[in-house]
């Protein structure tokens, strides 16, 4: 008894292909005489792009999620890491990733493809240490890591020149390091182009999320996972920047024609932090109540670039008015752009995150919020209890459930479903016939 028409996404398969190509490219890079590097989903991947067009990367978080998605392999990885003496409550992406190296299995078949160098940034207590260990496990891979912790200011303000200098400086030093490490010449044109693609991808993704304010929502969170992930792979890759522009048109068209992601949309919620990847069926379960998760600050903000206005609204950040002229300018623009990332700003205070989420709750027309108390990620779970208090104060029903994005042993399916039942009751939702 769907209320709205639904259609599968036309670009669905293309998204899948791009993702597969990405992981294959990395694995096969050496066969083509190319370079392999590893780093986080938040890293400034535009920089290594300056080393040439045959430079391929593997980003840690999405790779960790890919492992988590395969529950059997994931368990093997997690236990290998624990048996190597690492604590069970560390970042579960990291534990999956390390395990994949220790047991030498690549999530997409074959042995784990060893990176030639590491290009990382340090956003939480774990990120630099993550690759410190990777380097050790692989017998000493050269590593460059950039500290981006130059904030602590009101969001989108107070990024003084000195603060930008600090991060930009480390990147410029890093470029010299890259040239030494790979004995390749750094190509500024390729770099500037990559920066521009980065801006395009992250700007466009925010605009796509904005379209989800429509009722019915053209996208549900579960499908968004398969789309935003591309930016976490390589936001500076032209293929991905182009894809988002194409995707924008399709989603815009869905809104025009009133196409819904979930036909029986009645209640709109968002989640928070990474989901328990092994248990995405949670979202299908919601649909039985006519409830749709239309996204999250995480899916919107991890790779989407936003501004938070004085009126308390989230609006996509405008593209820079011009392409950077040289390495210096490109680097400073890149830093300024990424230090604005909302999903990063709230590391400094739960108040910011509460503001962003309230803005989403208001303008994306939510009935409630589901907070995933994610034992797998200290960074995104930071201040989550305060967010809960603030959202309730703002008048939104909040449900919390404990779990872990990458360690199924810490997610209790039955109990979570029971919670959802109770939460749906408080929203007044009834389970529809199955």
């Amino acid at each position, binding site marked *: 008894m769907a209320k709205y028409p639904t259609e599968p996404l036309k670009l669905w398969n293309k998204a899948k292909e791009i993702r597969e190509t990405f992981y294959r490219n990395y694995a096969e890079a050496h066969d083509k005489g190319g370079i392999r590097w590893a780093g986080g989903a938040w890293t400034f991947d535009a920089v290594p792009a300056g080393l040439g067009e045959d430079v391929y990367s593997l980003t840690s978080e999405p790779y960790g999620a890919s492992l988590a998605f395969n529950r059997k392999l994931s368990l093997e990885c997690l*236990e290998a890491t*624990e*048996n190597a*003496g690492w604590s069970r409550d560390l970042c579960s992406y990291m534990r999956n990733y390390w395990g994949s190296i220790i047991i030498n299995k690549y999530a997409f078949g074959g042995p784990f493809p060893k990176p030639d160098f590491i290009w990382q940034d340090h956003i939480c207590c774990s990120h630099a240490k993550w690759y410190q260990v990777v380097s050790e496990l692989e017998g000493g891979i050269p590593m460059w890591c950039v500290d981006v912790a130059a904030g602590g200011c009101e969001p989108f303000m107070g990024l003084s020149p000195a603060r930008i200098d600090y991060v930009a400086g480390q990147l410029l030093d890093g470029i010299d390091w890259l040239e030494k490490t790979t004995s390749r010449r750094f190509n500024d044109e390729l770099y500037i182009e990559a920066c521009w693609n980065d801006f395009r991808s992250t700007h466009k993704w925010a605009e796509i999320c904005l379209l989800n304010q429509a009722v019915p929502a053209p996208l549900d969170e579960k499908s968004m996972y398969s789309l935003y992930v591309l930016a976490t792979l390589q936001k500076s890759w032209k293929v991905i920047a182009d894809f988002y522009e194409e995707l924008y048109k399709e989603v815009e068209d869905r809104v025009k024609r009133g196409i819904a992601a979930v036909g029986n949309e009645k209640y709109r919620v968002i989640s928070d932090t990474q989901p328990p990847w092994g248990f995405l069926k949670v979202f299908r379960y919601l649909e039985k109540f006519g409830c749709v998760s239309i996204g999250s600050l995480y899916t919107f903000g991890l790779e989407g670039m936003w501004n938070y206005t004085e009126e308390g609204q989230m609006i996509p950040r405008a593209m820079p008015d011009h392409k950077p002229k040289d390495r210096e300018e490109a680097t400073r623009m890149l830093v300024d752009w990424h230090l604005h990332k909302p999903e990063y700003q709230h590391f400094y205070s739960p108040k910011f995150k509460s503001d962003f989420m309230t803005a989403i709750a208001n303008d994306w027309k939510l009935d409630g919020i589901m907070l995933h108390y994610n034992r797998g990620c200290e960074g995104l779970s930071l201040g989550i209890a305060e967010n809960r208090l603030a959202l309730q104060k703002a008048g939104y029903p909040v449900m919390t459930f404990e779990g872990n994005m990458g360690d199924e*042993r810490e997610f209790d399916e039955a109990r979570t479903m029971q919670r959802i039942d109770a939460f749906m009751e408080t929203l007044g939702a009834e389970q529809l016939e199955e």
Partner: protein
Amino acid sequence: MAEEYWRWTESRWTNPDLSWKDGEIVTAGVDVGSVSSQAVIMVDGRLYAYANTRTGSDSPNSAINVMNWALEETDGLSLDQVQYTVGTGYGRVNVPFAQRAITEIACHARGANFMYGPTVRTVMDMGGQDCKAIHCDEKGKVTNFLMNDKCAAGTGRGMEVFADLLNVSINEMGELSLRVEEEPPPVSSTCVVFAKSEASGLLRAGWPKEKVLAAYSSAMAHRVVSLLERIGMEEDFAITGGIAKNKGVVLRLEKELGVKALEPKYDTQIAGAVGAALFSKALVEKEKSKKK
């Protein structure tokens, strides 16, 4: 409360072909654990008598009771004729007649060295509330050890909970768990509290007892294996403590580990007390040599 299935049987033994009277050094070791207590009496370092009982909620008496029980069937040995006693276990400080306390970790290593021979390098003590993986040298001296932290899942207490839950005597659980055609997947939670509800769930879903037990036993074995993996497996390998008597856990443990544990010749629960009694002997000899 109906029958308490978790109550494992207490035991006592006296060496028929040994008399303390012909011996020179008579020493004892008393292991007061949180679940069980053992007393071991040795004559010149040879096993003379032992008793194995459940611990009461006030350990001083547990120590005296178990010791008296061990003495009962000896040829007239009395406590004051025991030259030296070492106390060990959680209640080691509360063995009133002991001259000294030594941890059960040192004692289990020493005891395993005696019970299984000097080739033992890794001792897995599966006790009531904790599991200890111990490395030792050819003399039985501890070189490294690791205990389960954070969570008591996979300890002997868990088995007791299951005994009650399934109305199966704890002594029969191992055998029962092996009566399954094919190995079921391990229960996901070995937490003593939640494993209980998980097991009830399985029973409600129509699983037979043996299948539920099999699932729990392999989960338990798996936890112990990861403890051993973390400290590193060095053969020979010996298992002490109550769970060592549970074939269902031991066989699964050996299978996953790919290592066979040495066959126990004695009650595996007395290892700690044996070690304590041997330390007692060493301490008596030390004092003698001092006097000379």
